């Protein structure tokens, strides 16, 4: 019994990384109608930048995370402003291909800059250690990740539902021409949303550095997970992304415990079934 509850906690902290990366992906799709294949690579860039600022330059952990968010946000801005914006009008297959080109560039750039080996900086002292939960030591850092993930969920909800900025973005998402007609600067909203989504991915990556390794392969691994989650939750559905992150995170924590062999296969089966039966996502109204 304790094992099950404890594994649920582990799954919850895993779910938060998934949530941070899929939130950005689904927001970008919801507003720009672009599936950003390179979103996993932005997660990876967040991880490596955090490693540099925190692990190599020795800056305070908080500042390192903030700086990596800004760095990746800038990268996202460049990707949108100078590349994606020029091809919104053509077949969406090309947008997919363009972001695929970014994956190739970013993944190799990381190898050139940081080398092909894994990087793990130490856990910051104030987050080190463990609490006892269900008779086992539960790392404080995991609790911190859960707290940040939940905080981001609340902030996003407030931002989109309650703020002026959120209303503008929602209006643009539901009808970009109408938004344009009433005076919304649509290109600027697009840039802003893409940048914001990139920063969410970077937050996930940056937070993961001290416990999950920063390696050149994490981008490719994370993007597949994020695709699964955003599809299950419904492309462009933020609430759906949150719920399905929890689902997939907790499920894979139990999966590795009870049926490690078929965990991966099983998750893809869920994705396929959702796409076939409810392509608008499990949690669409």
């Amino acid at each position, binding site marked *: 019994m304790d094992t099950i509850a404890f594994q649920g906690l582990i799954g919850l902290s895993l779910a938060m990384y998934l949530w941070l990366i899929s939130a950005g992906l689904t927001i970008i799709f919801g507003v720009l109608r672009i599936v950003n294949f390179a979103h996993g690579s932005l997660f990876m860039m967040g991880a490596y930048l955090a490693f540099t600022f925190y692990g190599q330059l020795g800056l305070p952990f908080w500042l390192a995370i903030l700086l990596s968010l800004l760095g990746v946000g800038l990268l996202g801005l460049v990707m949108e402003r100078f590349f994606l914006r020029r091809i919104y009008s053509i077949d969406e*297959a*090309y947008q997919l*291909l*363009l972001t695929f080109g970014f994956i*190739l560039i970013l*993944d190799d750039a990381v190898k*050139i800059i940081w080398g092909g080996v894994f990087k793990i900086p130490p856990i910051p002292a104030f987050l080190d250690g463990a609490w006892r939960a269900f008779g086992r030591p539960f790392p404080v850092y995991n609790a911190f990740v859960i707290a940040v993930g939940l905080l981001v969920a609340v902030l996003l909800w407030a931002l989109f539902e309650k703020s002026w900025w959120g209303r503008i973005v929602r209006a643009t998402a539901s009808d970009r021409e109408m938004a344009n007609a009433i005076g919304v600067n649509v290109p600027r909203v697009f840039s802003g949303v893409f940048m914001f989504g990139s920063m969410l991915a970077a937050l996930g990556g940056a937070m993961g550095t001290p416990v999950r390794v920063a390696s050149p392969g994490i981008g490719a691994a994370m993007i597949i997970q994020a695709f699964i989650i955003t599809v299950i939750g419904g492309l462009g559905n933020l609430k759906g992304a949150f719920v399905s992150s929890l689902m997939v995170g907790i499920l894979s924590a139990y999966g590795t415990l009870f049926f490690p062999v078929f965990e991966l*296969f099983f998750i*893809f089966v869920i994705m*396929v079934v959702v796409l076939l039966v409810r392509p608008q996502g499990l949690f669409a109204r």
Partner: protein
Amino acid sequence: MVLILVVLPSLAGRYSLYLVIQILILSVFSLGFNLLFGYTGLLSFGQAGFFAVGAYACAKILLAVPNLFLGLLGGVVIAAAAALLLGFLSVRHTRIYFSMLTLAFGMMIYSIAWKWRDFTGGDDGLVGIPRAPLAIPGLPALSVASMERYYYVVLVVSLLAIWLMYRLVNSPLGLALQAIRDSESRAEFAGIAVRTYRLVAFTIAGLYAGLAGALLPPLENTVTPPIAHWSTSAEPVLATLLGGIHVFGGPIVGAFLFFMIKDVIVRFTEYWLIWLGVIVVALVMGFRGGVVSMFARRAARAEAASDR
């Protein structure tokens, strides 16, 4: 061109032959992909799944019955059957949902190759696959153990596949597919059973992926799960994009360029993918027609200028 390919073994060394075999395999793989993408308008990100089905099926057969003919035939048939089955489900969607669905199916096959240890050998893959003799029923068995002999097998099979595809895209079926790509509703009004045609295109694309995959294990003597991964699905996508999607020969030229780029850049730096990425970005931003139509357009312009 074909003549050069025929006399190649007497001119080139083993490494060049190996490279040309790889180019031919990717050409067949990409031609199938482009029937789906360039001709039918469906971007699949799961073709590596069928490539792997072909490769694993061929490898399993060769390990049990050492006959290359059976291996290739089995690989093709099983991959086509898998494509028919998964295609039936995939063509319910188009555009991004189709791409996502094929990606998921491809990764399902990847996870089977990776995890079903007893059958696929898990992450070690299948090893010791023989380059077994080619024994077509009714004909004497032909040993293809040497690189030159195997090169000729791949050459004949690929040329045949290319010729058949050429016939296909210029047949009424090919024209119907292009009509669907250009306007689904117009094609429907013209009486084309859109979904059935898409399924046919999907199955043929899977068959070509399976054939390409089946040609690989006798060359490498092993098969491992990464060939089913989505990054392998990207190879025909890149090759087709490089060569050009709206020209028949685009994927073939693209496959050649893909390996040339790789071969040239790898001599200078191990980081060749970053340059491939730069090329992809440049192609998407500026030259969506690919290399072939770029030259075709230039030639047409030069001709128009000389007419004046």
